[in-house]
């Protein structure tokens, strides 16, 4: 069977998913992923990422809307789609008493065109752990075993649901490198993540999911381009906001001052920064805590979350940035 004719490998139209209890996890989303593209679904926990991916994987039928993977309905036409996709679930799903090699062997027996067991384990760096029972693996090793199974059948389309959650910094880099290699070799990849850094570094295009809806979509550059850059500094002693040059002349679109800390937003970072620094130089003052930052996905994300659900609610629910993630993830 040849399914290679389609340009759009994944097509999602007005997709909805309502759970038995009435909770609407996915509220009408539309996007498509081209062949060979790496598409990231970015969102906080509970944004609807996994609920969406499960529909793409064909684990459940959508409540409404349409999903096509390689031109087929992944739920109704499971047999046509499954041999061509690889799936990494958010949580393992391995019998704890099997060894690593036994687990891969079982999966290989159920996978068309499977790689040899040793090769699959080498790819993810578990070669030396093949005789170990799954229950003795660390959280990071389990994620890598899951990745090995997803890659076993050399899939055309790869679904990765939070592939690096629970990995340490090194493991995360390793997984990113592997995902890039696969993408370069022509694999279409859809990954979900709540690590902004991961989406920014890996994705060709991304969609930010918020409360079951797509809040923004495009390339990482496009999504961030709409967002302002920012400059933060402490006012020197004896100076007030009014002592600065007129903010509009600096190109500042928006500002806030908390205590002595001033936060400026601008779409013309170079002009604003230059004029501010020239002013400081001439006034012979030191701008303490100076932080000049171009628009980032993080800023975009927080802004979108604020706009979507009101400022009070969004701020504490913000995504984990790369730095926080690294701290919390040593395995």
């Amino acid at each position, binding site marked *: 069977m040849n399914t290679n004719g389609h340009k759009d490998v994944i097509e999602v139209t007005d997709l909805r998913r309502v759970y038995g209890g009435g909770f609407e996890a996915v509220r009408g989303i539309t996007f498509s992923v081209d062949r060979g593209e790496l598409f990231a679904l970015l969102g906080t926990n509970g944004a609807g990422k996994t609920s969406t991916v499960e529909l793409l994987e064909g684990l459940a039928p959508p409540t409404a809307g349409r999903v096509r993977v390689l031109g087929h309905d992944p739920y109704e036409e499971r047999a046509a789609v499954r041999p061509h996709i690889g799936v990494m679930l958010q949580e393992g*799903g391995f019998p704890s008493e099997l060894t690593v090699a*036994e687990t891969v062997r079982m999966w290989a027996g159920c996978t068309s065109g499977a790689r040899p067991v040793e090769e699959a384990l080498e790819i993810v760096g578990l070669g030396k752990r093949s005789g170990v029972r799954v229950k003795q693996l660390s959280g990071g090793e389990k994620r890598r075993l899951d990745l090995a199974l997803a890659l076993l059948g050399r899939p055309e389309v790869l679904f990765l649901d939070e592939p690096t959650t629970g990995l340490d910094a090194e493991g995360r880099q390793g997984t990113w490198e592997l995902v890039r290699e696969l993408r370069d070799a022509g694999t279409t990849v859809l990954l979900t993540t709540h690590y902004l850094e991961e989406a920014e570094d890996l994705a060709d295009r991304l969609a930010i999911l918020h409360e079951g809806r797509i809040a923004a979509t495009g390339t990482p550059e496009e999504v961030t381009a709409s967002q302002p850059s920012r400059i933060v500094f402490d006012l020197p002693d004896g100076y007030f906001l009014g002592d600065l040059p007129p903010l509009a002349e600096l190109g500042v679109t928006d500002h806030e001052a908390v205590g002595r800390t001033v936060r400026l937003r601008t779409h013309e970072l170079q002009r604003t920064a230059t004029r501010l620094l020239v002013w400081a130089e001439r006034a012979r003052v030191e701008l303490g805590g100076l932080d000049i930052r171009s628009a980032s996905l993080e800023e975009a994300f927080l802004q979108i979350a604020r706009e979507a659900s009101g400022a009070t609610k969004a701020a504490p629910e913000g995504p984990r940035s790369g730095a926080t993630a690294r701290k919390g993830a040593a395995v």
Partner: protein
Amino acid sequence: MSTVTSARTGASAGTTTSVGRVAALARAELTLLSRTKATLVAALFVPLVLPLTTRSAIDDMDLEGAGLSVGSVLLPASIGFSLLFAVYSSLVSVYAARREELVLKRLRTGELRDLEILAGAALPSVVIGLVQCVVLVLACTALLDVGAPEAPHLAVLGLLLGLVMWPALAALVASFSKSVEGAQVAAMPLLLVSMLASGTIAPLEVMPDRLAAVCELLPLTPVITLLRGGWTGNLSGYDTLGAVATAVAWTVLAVFAVQRWFRWEPRR
């Protein structure tokens, strides 16, 4: 059938087949069974030991008045225990454990069809049950001079229906639990009722008529009836039809219910 061999070596190159997928899964499941000592002991030894303990109770019954012998009661009862412990009870645990470990969900992301997943998980237990039945037949023949079955086709039919019906019932019962321990509790009612009231220990012939009429409708009863009829050869055409109809009805019902209500993922 290169896939079956490749399932064995783990390095498959071609497209998988239904048989190959079930075989790969069953092999893993057998490995797991051999590593779960409690389940293994329950599955292997209880059905072989239990008949010995019920022997004295059977000796005390007025069997000759009902046209039965010790052997023709004990043998079907033993096979019934094997279906209950080696197949039903152990499979309830297996299905619940695989669901709670998210193994079933994981398997459903692959090429396996739903029925293949359930069949692959059940296969080792079903084979153990089958082997036990053969051992029990040989042992009863040697020790209790049961003699060759008069109507072997009835015995085979009863056993086959039992081997489909009880895995399906196990899958269904496993759906009504939230944990492996819960599944064991959920398995108990059907297990106890079947042990006491399906003509295993106390043949229906020695029960009051009204009670016997209800007991005839239990899922294990037609299996026992067909097995016993297979050996004695004195099951009437009407009774045979009734037993087969009851067994088929339970099997169809169980399979339908599993398709409709089987839980593939833990409750959240």
